[in-house]
Structure formats: structure tokens, C-alpha cells
């Protein structure tokens, strides 16, 4: 089967609605189909990869550890929009440490998160074949 560039655009907070959780389920299937998968986080979507998530008080599953497994599925391109982070008073330090192992570089751990401006993100979107927004 052909390989296409799939972009999963995440726009919503991780809890409150089911979109983030069900988006992640599609991402894992996309990776299993050996597609060229990227993720983008804009708006409240940046909270999906925030550090130290704790759902004890709301009775929902904390699914944030799953993002740490993405590197093992060769999902290594996680674009975070700079303007969205800044508008929420967040910096890269507030996000999980998401990495992947580069087997072509002696399994060096490399960061998956790429901080980009809205303009830079637009250029990334231009390169995609399929964009699924959540």
C-alpha cells in the first residue's frame, strides 16, 4: 500500500471531550499502516502533551503516558505551535519530555517535539497528503 503523509491536527484539551483520546487511537493505527505520520498541537490542543497530568478528581483515564510510546511507533514529528503555547503562559518546560531513538545514529535519544510558529506550521501543512483534524 502506498505511503502518504498523514497529519493529525489536535485542537482540543485532553479532557472535557473525547476528541483527544480518540485522535490518539487513530494516530496509532496510522502508524501501524506504516504511513508518514505527523502530529500538530494548536490552541488548547497543546494541553494534551502537558507534563504531570492527573485525572484522579474527574474519574477519567489519564492517557497522557501513551504519547511517550509514540516514538516506538516511529511517530517522531510532533509540531507545537509557539503562539498557542505563549497565549496560555506555557513554555517547552511545561510539556512532557517526548523523545524517539534514532536507530541510524546509534539509537541516540532525540526530541520529538518541534516548536514552530504558525507560519512555519502552515508550510508543514502544505506538504501533507491527508489532514485529519480533531
Amino acid at each position, binding site marked *: 500500500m*502506498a505511503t502518504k503523509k*498523514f497529519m493529525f491536527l489536535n485542537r482540543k484539551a485532553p479532557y472535557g471531550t*473525547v476528541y483527544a483520546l480518540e485522535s490518539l487511537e*487513530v494516530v496509532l493505527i*496510522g502508524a501501524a499502516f506504516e*504511513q508518514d505520520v505527523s502530529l500538530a498541537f494548536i490552541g488548547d490542543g497543546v494541553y494534551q502533551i502537558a507534563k504531570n497530568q492527573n485525572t484522579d478528581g474527574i474519574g477519567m483515564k489519564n492517557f497522557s503516558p501513551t504519547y511517550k510510546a509514540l516514538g516506538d511507533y516511529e511517530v517522531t514529528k510532533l509540531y507545537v505551535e509557539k503562539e498557542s503555547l505563549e497565549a496560555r503562559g506555557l513554555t517547552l518546560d511545561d510539556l512532557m519530555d517526548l523523545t524517539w531513538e534514532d536507530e541510524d545514529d546509534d539509537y541516540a535519544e532525540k526530541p520529538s517535539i518541534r516548536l514552530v510558529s504558525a507560519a512555519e506550521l502552515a508550510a508543514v501543512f502544505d506538504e501533507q497528503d*491527508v489532514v*485529519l*483534524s*480533531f
Partner: protein
Amino acid sequence: MKYSIMVNEGPYTHQASDTALHFCKAALEAGHEIFRVFFYHDGVNNGTRFTVPPQDDRNIQQEWSKLASAHDIDLVVCIAAAQRRGIMDADEAKRQGIDGNNIAPGFRISGLGQLIEGGIIADRQLVFGD
């Protein structure tokens, strides 16, 4: 052009399903092909035949079934999303020990791979949702 469609919202609460229907009809009339319609999130609620809207309102579920039968369109309901929301076909109901099923004519239940495959095969993948 060959289109794949994704519907992410349920009927009536949100216009996404109506808009997707209108798009499919217009695309078919213009000579395009609809490869597949994939229902995800609350969109799976478009696929229950237990829908009974008031008589003076449109019946969105039946519109989808009619479209599928008239144009041989593949309507796929995501199994994981369907299980969460109580959409069942006979096989799935038997497997889960549930005493009935509600899948509408023309719809089938399958996995998320069908969505990815739609994206790979179609020229354009369109998402209708919030």
C-alpha cells in the same frame, strides 16, 4: 475525483452530518466518486436504525442509508467508537452478549484501519466535524 469522507459528530446536535450528506450528494451529481464514509466519535450515532425524528424533520440516518443503496457507498462505523456508544450489529451483539442490535441498513462496523485506508486510496479526505 475520488473522495473519502469522515463524519465526527452525531445527527441533529451538530450540522456536520447534514453538511457531509449534502457534500456527498453534490459530489456524486458532479460525477465524482465517494470511496467511503467513515463515522467516528459521536458520528457513529448516524448509524442506528432506532432513530425516530419528528415527522416534520429530516431523517438523517435514513438519508445516509438511501444514499448508500442508490450509489453503492461504503458506510463504515468505527468499532471502538461504536462500542462506547452502544451501536451494535448482530455479530458484535452476539460477541458481547447484548440482546439486540441497531445498525442501520447500508452501514457496517469495522476498524480504524478503514479510515487510514480511505486516506491512502482517495484523492481527497474530507473531515466534517466540530
